[in-house]
């Protein structure tokens, strides 16, 4: 920690320092020209670190995706992204993310609605929010294990359904290691994330709005269609967009659940790093670039929608 973190009272704000007579001491050890250094020294380590371990590594991938094996400029890697196999992977990743964002968004919204406007006791809400905090962090390998133990081929529910009701899930087309199985598993962290981000928006729904629309004759579904949903729409959309990004970048859960059987883009990149397939690092960089572009668009969309949403939450 640099020495200058101290003199918070001076610099640009020196004029407002409440005890000007104490300032002499500070002025003495501040050599000429140190003003600029001091102003910035606290944030410089962060920027350097972020540059070294986040921005530049990402930038090397960007550069690499425009190079061939000998370092010459090429657009071939980007063109290869349109190969059927790779395009299919992107589509699959988008599908998983979209399905889990929409379903997670819908059911997360319903749960959040139940504990905010649904007239449930306050304790239920506290528990749901706490549990959602845990569940949204419970992901990756252990989550995959939990679903294998529950709905895998010898999972408890699978076996129970078969022995008690004679229903064989796997004979009826269910498969945990498939698109829908993976999506069902992702929902375990998507749904609680939705609860956490949409609850504040529902808290912002003023009782007066409902009362006013009821007085004007708009009840039940009409109130929801014409008043509540338009107000909530930006929040809902931005949450769904965030959920989309949340699923899009997920690697560990898919890896542990399917062992790379489902060809999501993160799985493809992982295989590329390990040198399992393709064996064309530059194509791998292009894969990563495509992913970052999609994620960036996602986050920008989220931010734009959030700005719209905050219109109603301001007092």
């Amino acid at each position, binding site marked *: *920690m640099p020495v200058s*973190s*101290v*003199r918070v*009272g001076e610099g640009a704000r020196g004029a407002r320092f*409440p*005890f000007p007579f*104490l300032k002499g001491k500070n002025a003495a050890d501040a050599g000429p020209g140190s003003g600029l250094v001091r102003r910035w020294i*606290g*944030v410089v380590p*962060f920027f350097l*670190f*972020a540059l070294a*371990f986040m921005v*530049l*590594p*990402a*930038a*090397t*991938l960007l550069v*690499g995706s425009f190079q061939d094996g000998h370092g010459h400029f090429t657009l071939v890697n980007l063109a290869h992204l349109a190969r059927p196999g790779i395009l299919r992977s992107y589509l699959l990743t988008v599908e998983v993310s979209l399905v889990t964002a929409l379903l997670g968004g819908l*059911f997360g919204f*319903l*749960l959040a*609605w*139940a504990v905010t*406007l*649904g*007239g449930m006791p306050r304790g239920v809400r506290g528990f*749901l929010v706490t549990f959602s905090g845990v569940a*949204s*962090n419970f992901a*990756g*390998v*252990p989550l995959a*294990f939990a679903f294998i*133990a*529950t709905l895998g081929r*010898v*999972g*408890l529910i699978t076996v129970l359904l078969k022995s008690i009701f004679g229903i064989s899930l796997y004979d009826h087309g269910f498969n945990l290691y498939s698109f829908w199985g993976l999506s069902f598993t992702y*929902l375990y962290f998507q749904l609680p994330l939705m609860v*956490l981000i949409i609850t*504040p928006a529902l808290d912002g729904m003023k009782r007066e709005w409902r009362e006013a629309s009821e007085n004007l004759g708009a009840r039940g579904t009409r109130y929801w269609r014409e008043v509540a949903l338009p107000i909530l729409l930006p929040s809902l959309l931005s949450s769904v967009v965030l959920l989309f990004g*949340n699923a899009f*970048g*997920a*690697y*560990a859960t898919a*890896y*542990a659940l399917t062992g790379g059987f489902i060809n999501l883009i*993160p799985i493809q990149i992982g295989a590329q*790093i*390990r040198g399992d397939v393709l064996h064309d690092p530059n194509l*791998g*960089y292009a894969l990563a670039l495509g*992913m*970052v572009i999609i994620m*960036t668009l996602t*986050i920008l969309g989220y931010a734009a929608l959030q700005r719209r949403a905050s219109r109603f939450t301001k007092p």
Partner: protein
Amino acid sequence: MTAGLAVRTAERPVSRRKAWSALWLSLGGLYFFLPLLATFLFSLRGKKGVLSFVAYAHVFRDPQFLKTFTFSLEMAVATIVAGLALMIPTALWVNLRLPRVRPVIEVFALMPFVIPPIVLVFGLIRMYSQPPFALVTSPVLLVAGYVVLSFPYIFRAVDAGLRAIDLKVLTEASQSLGARWGTTLFRVVLPNIRAALLSAAFLTFSIVVGELTLAVMLAWPAFGPYMALVGRDLAYEPAALAVISFLLTWGSLLVIQLASRGFREQGPTAGGVH
């Protein structure tokens, strides 16, 4: 609003609303608790015919368990220390001296959401595998990656903590009483945001301890890759590991909840690294 109208519009919908709420909550409850229950029961079936904690005994007796868990614990502590050492000055500066750069810092702190772990580790490997920066075999690179992953959570927690106190008055009061910068920082500012610091620490802990992507790609014997390996070879032990992980996550989030009681910030606990 007349009394008659109020009764007609309010009462029936309230009971119907409660019924719907109860329905959605029960469905949600089933979805969330059945897997936990099933995993727990599954983990007890290590011995044929009886319920037992044999799978847990196997896990705890496996020297690899202790070794990998300790390794991940060390990485978590290093990440927390490095992350806080980077983020506390940054957040202080943003709140006291350079409010102008806040948007830039926020963009940087949120960038890990745009760069998924698998892409981040790819970039780290490409950049640091040849001289002059051959860091790929050093744990420094792993910790650096983890610090990047925890940027958003640490920054938000520390920043929210600093915003919740009257930082300017506190620091100026401390200095006008003659405290040096170290005293001001360690005895005035940090104690006042200890709930936020604890949140940041435990959130980082819960992200790092079971993390798979970075650890497996940089080839470290961490807890995440160990779990994945057990999952490939055994049946009941993975379920036991899932239960242990869930309890760990629950435990660290519980600490955050307790620490931040009365500290009105729900944000930092949302989401993790999947």
